């Protein structure tokens, strides 16, 4: 099996880190739904893309040299809730100017805005453990992972039932099953994404893959961001 296009492109460029767009294309190729997005070279293209995607949108810096987009350039790397052509144009122009100032090659990514309150933010990660090889990690987003370390691990590849057990073992799994009247999340779709992330790490030279967050709603899951780091060649 040859590597999918996003990985091949990064390899050709001599990059170990995939851009967000490449990461999302990789996820999409594995059957994990992602937000609709376009990569644009200038502000005009960004405005066109926003019209095609539909407002509101998110505009992000798109560069292999920027992995922590929201921390970049004083916080202008991610602009959310943009609901007009003017807002998109300004955000895109600001990002491109900051990139030029810093001497890095950058595009802008225009992306469908998601209402994160519609669901639960979940983290699905894949790593290559020195002793066990591909391992897939599942955790609930934000404080649940960062403070409570509420994550579970499985040696990949795994089947659907194993992925369900990895989800159900989370201490805060109740949140996914309808908490205080919220709709139960589509846990089977989440399990399918956990399986897919494990399979990606098993099947390709990926050192680390973070889908953070994966918005899990009653109608399915959607990856809002993706970070993929390849193994050393």
């Amino acid at each position: 099996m040859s590597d999918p296009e996003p990985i091949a492109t990064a390899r050709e460029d001599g990059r170990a880190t995939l851009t967000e767009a490449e990461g999302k294309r990789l996820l999409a190729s594995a059957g994990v739904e992602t937000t609709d997005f376009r990569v644009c070279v200038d502000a005009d293209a960004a405005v066109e893309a926003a019209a095609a995607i539909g407002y509101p949108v998110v505009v992000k810096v798109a560069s292999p040299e920027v992995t922590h987009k929201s921390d970049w350039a004083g916080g202008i790397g991610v602009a959310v809730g943009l609901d007009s052509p003017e807002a998109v144009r300004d955000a895109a122009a600001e990002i491109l100017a900051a990139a030029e100032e810093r001497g890095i090659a950058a595009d802008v990514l225009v992306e469908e805005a998601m209402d994160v309150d519609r669901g639960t933010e979940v983290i699905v990660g894949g790593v290559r453990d020195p002793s066990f090889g591909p391992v897939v990690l599942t955790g609930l987003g934000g404080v649940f992972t960062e403070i409570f370390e509420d994550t579970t691990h499985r040696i990949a590849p795994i089947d659907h039932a194993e992925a369900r057990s990895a989800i159900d073992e989370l201490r805060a799994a109740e949140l996914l099953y309808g908490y205080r009247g919220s709709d139960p999340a589509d846990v089977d779709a989440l399990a399918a994404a956990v399986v897919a992330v494990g399979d990606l790490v098993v099947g390709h030279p990926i050192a680390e893959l973070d889908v953070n967050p994966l918005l899990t709603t009653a109608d399915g899951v959607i990856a809002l961001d993706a970070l993929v780091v390849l193994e050393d060649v």
Partner: protein
Amino acid sequence: MATRSEVVLFALSNSVVGPRLSSSVSGSRHPSQCTTVRTRWENALPLFDEAWGVSLTHLFEPSGVAVVGASRTEGKIGYVAMANATNFEGPVSPVNPSESGELFGSEFVPSVTEIDEPVDLALCCVPGPAMPDVLEECGAAGIGAAVIYASGFAEAGGDGAKLQEAIVEVADEHGISLLGPNTSGFLVPATDLRCSFASGVEEVPPGNTAVVAQSGGVAHVLAFQSRRQRRGVSAMVGLGNRANVGFAEAIEYFDGDDRTDSIVLHIEGTDDGRRLLEACRESDTPVIAYKVGQSDVGAFAESHTGALTGDHEVYTAGFAQYGVPTVDATDDLLDAAAALGNAPTPSGPNVGVVTAQAGPGIIVTDRIQRAGGRLPELTVETKQRVDEILPGITYDDNPVDTGRPMPEFGEVVTAVAEDDRVDIVLVYELFEAALGFPVDTLGGLADRVDKPVLFATEGIEEELESERDALAAAGVPIFETPERAADAAGVLARYARLHADEAGGAGGRPPSGGSRGADGEVGRRE
């Protein structure tokens, strides 16, 4: 014994055993390839793979033994190893070119190539640098296994690592299994094969648990504990640096060993975790693991058997995924082995408890639920049966509390054991000299109802000894405290959950649907 040799170490040992998955995975690769990490040397040595099973047979079931570096000087390893080895039923030959005459009734020979009797196993009590030559001679003599006690190999880094590579090369060429280096050896008490230089190993009794420890020191801790618990071991192995015999090879061997009914693992870390897990999954014999290193013990452990300790959470999750319950103490390991190795495999996590005293029963009840078990309500029929046996009984649901030892105690246990809602039976009773234990009732009960029946008691040791031995002889696993019995029942419950797929369903994973069962609640605490 935790010898000084075990304490000065380093991190390369497994690089010579199996390729590291991290570096060997490049480009596309099917997951099943991960199950055959041995491939690399199988390809290099096509004959060695066929000889593989035979090789560990040479180690653990030799026709004869050579003690290389045997010495007349008391206190030297070459003397102690010879002294312990001579208990073996087959011929044991002292090998030393500087000695002559006899030692423990056997004639010294200058080289393993000059032993007239059949010999499969060399116990090497010589310094590390002499090992490549010794192994060449072993190869020439057709010896299939060697124990290397010396340290100063991979764990020492630099030249030591090169020396380890050199001995593995020679061993591979001749198809020799190497236990160690940097180990204190192994025991097979049933055949009096006592290849350790620790004092007291001749007292370790035969049992049906195979102890496979990364550390020779921990192997001995477990072996001596098993003696105090009157359980014994089918074998005790300290793997040390795992030059070419590691966890997977040991598990494969003991799974096929008739004397072994359970396998316990002590693990500090291995670079080849996936192969270890695959071996566990392949084993029909229950495996229980104790992975040390929930806190950061990395540097000390690496300096010990030269292995990375790894992410404890990944180990624990991996073991559960591959059907291996984990515990957190050496005595828990042997208790779990006693439960899993001496009872029918439970078909679910539901524990029925019968106690003659309320207090210990409450401890058991509390503990079992935290350990992964579940206490089901008994059926109406069982409660009626119990009420008929003991009108006005203290408490007729689960746990059933008879209030005191009594002649009818065995009948009550039988009623609970025959309850369809119960998968595992735990009995607690303080010893009452006038009544003894219900040996006749408990003996054979587990087999008849096809469920584990665990028994825990307390009393004056000398008074209850004969009754206890009678119970043990009847095949009942016995535990020393209410907590340890409850924890053992918890391991059985977890084992049942982890193997629910094979058993055909009871217990098992949380249902895949919206709601989560109590199984999920408890199971996740593994």
